[in-house]
């Protein structure tokens, strides 16, 4: 299964927003498939926290379309820029959400999108720098049945 091709977007300058990726026709990925996608992305480096900042709601208002965004702290110069960011929804049947590719020309490394979340789960953002180092941020998003507050 060629996941990366379907899931990869090349990002131009500045921030972009785009619609949810449908994964309904794709069979659920096994945990090892997801691990392999992450392993391929990080290329043997140990992800460390910092630089990348993921923003998610604490509780999803609508699990079918959850707004998420990330920013990566980087000067975005030819020598020092964010190469790509992999977003993973660990608890979805199809965890890899998207890979965002950047270049020094992008100016800044940030993006926002909306994703569907099947259940309460961790969202992970892996940011790979041009030198191959990888940074990670993780946020838990709760998906509730709702309706009893007040």
């Amino acid at each position: 299964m060629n996941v990366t091709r379907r899931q990869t977007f090349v990002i131009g300058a500045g921030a972009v927003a785009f619609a949810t990726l449908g994964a309904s026709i794709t069979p659920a990925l096994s945990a090892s498939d997801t691990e392999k996608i992450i392993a391929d992305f990080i290329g043997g480096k140990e992800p460390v926290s910092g630089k990348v900042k993921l923003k998610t709601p604490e509780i999803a208002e609508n699990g079918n379309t959850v707004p998420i965004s990330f920013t990566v702290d980087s000067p975005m110069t030819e020598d020092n820029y964010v190469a790509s960011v992999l977003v993973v929804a660990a608890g979805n049947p199809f965890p890899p959400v998207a890979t965002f590719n950047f270049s020094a020309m992008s100016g800044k490394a940030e993006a926002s999108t909306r994703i569907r979340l099947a259940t309460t789960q961790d969202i992970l953002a892996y940011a790979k720098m041009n030198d191959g180092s990888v940074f990670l941020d993780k946020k838990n998003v709760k998906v509730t049945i709702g309706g009893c507050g007040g």
Partner: protein
Amino acid sequence: MFTRRDFLQWAAVTASITGFSGSLTKVAAQQKLTQDDLLKFDSKGQVTLLHVTDIHGQLKPLYFRPPSENYGVGAFEGIPPHLVAEDFLKHFNIDNGTPLAYAHTMVDYVNMAKTYGRLGGLDRTATLIKAIRGDRGDDKVLLLDGGDTWQGSYTSLKTNGQDMVDCMAMLKPDAMVGHWEFTFGAERVLEIIDQMDYPFLAGNIVDNDFEEPVFESTKIFEKGGVKVAVIGQAMPYTPIANPRWMFPEWSFGIRPEVLQENVDKARAAGAEVVVLLSHNGFDVDQKLPTVVSGIDVILTGHTHDAVPEAIRIGTTLVLSSGSHGKFLGRIDLEIKGGKVVDYNSTLIPVFSDIIEADTEMAAKIDDVRAPYEAECQRVIGKSEGLLYRRGNFNGTWDDLICQGLIEERDAEISLSPGFRWGTTLLPGQDITIDDLYTQTSMNYPSVYRLEMTGETLNNILEDVCDNLFNKDPFLQQGGDMVRVGGMGYTVRPKEEIGSRISDMVHLKTGEPIEASKSYVVAGWASVNEGTQGPAIYDLMETYITRLKSIPQLENNTIKVVGM
């Protein structure tokens, strides 16, 4: 903070009531405590903040029994607001049998209620506000409405909240925020805001498409020569706890980063004091100052906690002024060089038999209620026992509703939402339409009847329980546990989601609830659009009318473990 002087005076008032057993007459109690006693306060500084919140449509004085359980978990266990009864009295150094003990706890509730009478009534609150404005000077006082104002009564339902809007306008508040307001629908909310002479502030609401602000976030006032910024924070989980389809364009959330920006902007614009008018709930607002800096005062609502003085979280003061018009919150601030250097705070219990009604407001209340008064007063039954709602797991009003749902819809199990609004009836009181609607007045009242598996029921209980007992307050939505009829269970609040609920049992048969088996369930207040069924208030009117007299209800079907 209660001044020692206030305490002494109130204690003196109550010295003769030591060993209280209900023998003291109401007249005697009233003669002891006066309106002036209630207004006594050690004023401070240049600014007085007055706070009303979660009035829930209650224009008239009422009984409201405080909860007998209000558990906190994690870092919030055993501290305010999670103290009840004797623990509460001990913590705040309040003597048993005193007016304050009655206002804040359910200890000896029925006797105390008979002695000290009803609390609240917007005409009484108007008197207090006028007196404080007169004493301090209008130029020093800000009146802030924490929301959940427009919903909760027969007349608020029939007038689409207009009764409350008109009466509140007479109090001349400086700003308000909202939660149940949104259940009148986005269009109606905007229509009312258009009529209001004061701003509806909500910095944490953005439109779904571009995440741009929908409402003003901040208003800066000049009071006592000090620039005071008031920032509004609507109930963050309104689209989850209430039907999102009623305001589909709007997204809420705590949004601490947006709040920090708004605080910083207010400071940059010269604000010397920053006040957050919040509908977050008490525990969310206990955590908030640890992630957002620069807020001097949080006036908090939503969780209906009445805490007799402001608590301090770092340099932030948090005042929680109760609900249903029972209390008027007051906090005075002395500001020097852009900093709060001294303060004094209190909740004034609105004892309706002691405080003189403001005649203008009383006339207005009569006026807005007039077309509905006869219907409001219509008696549909009588309560032999105490009917109340508040409690983490059940209240007798909800026990009655759960019973009505099962019998009127021929269900095996019933579910009723864990709302915290709704008044109390004493044993022997008539049940009127007015009383019924304090428990059921809402715009999504349909009673559904459908089959649910045991697994689904378990998931619902676990889900709601986590809204109440998640150790991270930012994940708490603020209601109580969903009420259940026809089924018993054991709950362990300190466990994690998925491990709190056990021993679910079908009460009628005594059999354990089976995960794969289907049960007929009736419930109301579904957040799903297009829910079919009779309105809860109609169903309960039929049920109560049929029963005529409601016996004292006991509920021993929920076992709480580990608290």
